[in-house]
C-alpha cells in the first residue's frame, strides 16, 4: 500500500510495515532536542519519577541534545541559574550532544542539529521548540512538543499518542528570478495556506525547484512550515541531503534515504511556478498576511534584522554583505546581524562578510536567537517598525506589543537597510 514519507518513517519507528492516516502510534524517538527550556523539562522529568523509588535516568543520553541559544549569554540571573542547573543535569546524565555558550560550538538549536549531523533522513525528531519543523529539511519527521511531553520522551524513549498526520503536497517547479529566495517561496506558500491551513498536517515539498535547492534553503522552508500550522515540513532525502551530511556535517556512516511512494495519497496538492514569484513580505501581525514587496514599498523602518534559524546562514550573510559592501546603512535605521552558529560566524568572518557588514554600519551580535524573540537584545521602541529575516511577526514578538515586525528575505532586508524604507530589490534602477 502506498504511503507518504512520514507514514513510512512512522511505520518503521513503530515496528509496522504500514500505517494509516489517523492511526495512533507510539513511535521510537531518534533525537530529542531542547534548549534553555530543558529547565522545565527537568522539573517535569523529576516529577514523573517522584514516588516511584526509581533512579531518574533518561532513557538514552546519546539521543538527547541540549543547545543553549534563546538567551545567550544569559540576560538575567534567572536564566543564568537555569543554565547552570541544566549544565549539572547534562553532566549527571552523561548527555554529550550539549552545546554551551562557547564560540567554537554554540548556535541556534535548529542550525546545530543539522551542522553536527545529529539529524538523519528517516529519523523521528522531537524538540521543545515549535521550529523543530526545520529538520524536515534533512528528510526527518521532526516536530515541536511541549516540555512535559519531552519529559515523557526522556523517560520512555517513545512519544505517546501520535496520530499519523495527513500530508499536503506542495510541488514547486521553475527557476527563481533574481533576488527571489526560498524565503519568498515559503512566505508565498503560507499566504496561500493561511496560518492554520496546515494545522495537524505535514507539508511534503517536491518539484525541481526543491531538488535544486541546497539544504540551507530547505531549512528555511521547513522552518517556516509551522507558520501555516503544520506539524512538520519535509523534503524527502536525496543526493543533496547526502552531500550536506558528508561535506558540512562530516558524517561518515551509511545514510539510507526514505522516500514517499509515487502514488501516495495526499490531503491536498498545491502547485507553484517558482519563476513567477516576486519578493514577498509578511505584514503585521500574522505570518500569513503576505504581500509582494512592491505593494508596501516606502514604509519607514527603524530596525533591520538579519539572522535566526530561518535566515542566519552563510548564504544569507553573503547576499547581505554583497549588497551592503562599500555602502552605508541609512541614518535612523539600526541593522542587527546575528549569525545562526559559531561555525557560520567564524566562516563569515574569514570571508570578510562581517567586516563588510560592520563597515556599512551593521551591529554583529553573537550567535543565538537574539532579537528574534525580543528577550534580551534588539527590542523595539514604542511605535517602531522592524524588517526582519526571522519567522514570526506576532504582536509583542521582538519585545514590544506596540511595535511592528515585517518579515522578508535577506536580500529585501539588506536593500531596505540602505534606504531606511521597505524597498524592492528588483524595483526601478
Amino acid at each position: 500500500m502506498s504511503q507518504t514519507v512520514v507514514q513510512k518513517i512512522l511505520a518503521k519507528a513503530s515496528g509496522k510495515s504500514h500505517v494509516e492516516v489517523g492511526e495512533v502510534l507510539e513511535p521510537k524517538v531518534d533525537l530529542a532536542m531542547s534548549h534553555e527550556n530543558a529547565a522545565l523539562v527537568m522539573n517535569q522529568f523529576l516529577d514523573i519519577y517522584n514516588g516511584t523509588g526509581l533512579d531518574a535516568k533518561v532513557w538514552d543520553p546519546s539521543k538527547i541534545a541540549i543547545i543553549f541559544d534563546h538567551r545567550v549569554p544569559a540576560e538575567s540571573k534567572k536564566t543564568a541559574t537555569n543554565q547552570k542547573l541544566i549544565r549539572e543535569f547534562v553532566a549527571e546524565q552523561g548527555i554529550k550532544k550539549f552545546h554551551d555558550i562557547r564560540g567554537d560550538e554554540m548556535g541556534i538549536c535548529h542550525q546545530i542539529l543539522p551542522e553536527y549531523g545529529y539529524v538523519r533522513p528517516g529519523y523521528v525528531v522531537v524538540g521543545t521548540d515549535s521550529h523543530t519543523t526545520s529538520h524536515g529539511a534533512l528528510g526527518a519527521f521532526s516536530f515541536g512538543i511541549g516540555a512535559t511531553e519531552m519529559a515523557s520522551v526522556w523517560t520512555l524513549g517513545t512519544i505517546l499518542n501520535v496520530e499519523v498526520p495527513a500530508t499536503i503536497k506542495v510541488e514547486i517547479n521553475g527557476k527563481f528570478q533574481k533576488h527571489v529566495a526560498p524565503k519568498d517561496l515559503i512566505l508565498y506558500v503560507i499566504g496561500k495556506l493561511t496560518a492554520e491551513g496546515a494545522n495537524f498536517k505535514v507539508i511534503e515539498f517536491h518539484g525541481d525547484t526543491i531538488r535544486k535547492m541546497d539544504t540551507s534553503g530547505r531549512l528555511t522552508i521547513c522552518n517556516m512550515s509551522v507558520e501555516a500550522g503544520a506539524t512538520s515540513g519535509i523534503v524527502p532525502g536525496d543526493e543533496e541531503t547526502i552531500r550536506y551530511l558528508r561535506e558540512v556535517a562530516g558524517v561518515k556512516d551509511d545514510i539510507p534515504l526514505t522516500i514517499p511512494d509515487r502514488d501516495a495519497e495526499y490531503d491536498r496538492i498545491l502547485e507553484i511556478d517558482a519563476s513567477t514569484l516576486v519578493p514577498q513580505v509578511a505584514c503585521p501581525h500574522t505570518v500569513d498576511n503576505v504581500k509582494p514587496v512592491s505593494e508596501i514599498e516606502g514604509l519607514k523602518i527603524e530596525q533591520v534584522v538579519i539572522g535566526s534559524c530561518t535566515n542566519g546562514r552563510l548564504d544569507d550573510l553573503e547576499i547581505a554583505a554583497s549588497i551592503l559592501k562599500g555602502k552605508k546603512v541609512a541614518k535612523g535605521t539600526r541593522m542587527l546581524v546575528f549569525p545562526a552558529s559559531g561555525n557560520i560566524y567564524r566562516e563569515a568572518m574569514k570571508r570578510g562578510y562581517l567586516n563588510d557588514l560592520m563597515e556599512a554600519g551593521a551591529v554583529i551580535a553573537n550567535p543565538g536567537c537574539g532579537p528574534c524573540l525580543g528577550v534580551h537584545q534588539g527590542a523595539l521602541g514604542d511605535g517602531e517598525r522592524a524588517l526582519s529575516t526571522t519567522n514570526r511577526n506576532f504582536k509583542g514578538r521582538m519585545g514590544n506589543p506596540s511595535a511592528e515586525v515585517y518579515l522578508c528575505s535577506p536580500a529585501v532586508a539588506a536593500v531596505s537597510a540602505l534606504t531606511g524604507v521597505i524597498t524592492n530589490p528588483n524595483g526601478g534602477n
Partner: protein
Amino acid sequence: MAKVIYKLEDDISTDIIYPGRYMATVLPTETPQYAFADLTDLNKMLNDGNLPQQSIIVAGKNFGCGSSREQACSTLKGHELTVVARNFARIFLQNSINLGLQTIVCPEVDASVGDEMEIADNKLINKTSGKSFEIIPLPQARQSIIDAGGLIPYTRKRLMQNVGK
C-alpha cells in the same frame, strides 16, 4: 455554570498569552502572574482574583499558535480558566491536554462577556442567549491522558509497567 470573562480575536499567539520576556520563569507555580501580561486589563482581572468560580475565555480560530512554550498553558491553568475557541494550534492543544488545562473546541461558538455557559451532551449551551453549539470531542487517544490526570501520571504509570516487564 461558568461565566465568560473575556473575548479574544483569531490567531492569539503564545507571545500574547505568555510573552517571551518571561520565558526564564518556568515553574507552573510561578507562571500565572504573567498571563496575558501585555493585555493589561485581562492580566489585572486574573491577578486580582475576584473571578467567578468557573471562568471562560472565548477566542476565535488558531488559539495558541506560535511557540511550544508550555508556560502558555500553565499560566492559564494556574487561574483555573477554561478556554473555548473555534480551534486550537496543535502544540498548544497537546500541552493543554498534558497539563490538564480545560480547552473546548467549538467552531460555531457565539458568546459575549458576562454570558453564562454550560456543557451538556457534547454541546456548549449559552444560557444567556439560549443558543447551543456543537463541541468537537477530543480523539480517544488524547482523552486517555486526561482520564489519567495528565501526562505526568500517565507516563509514570507506563514507566512502572515497563519496569515490571
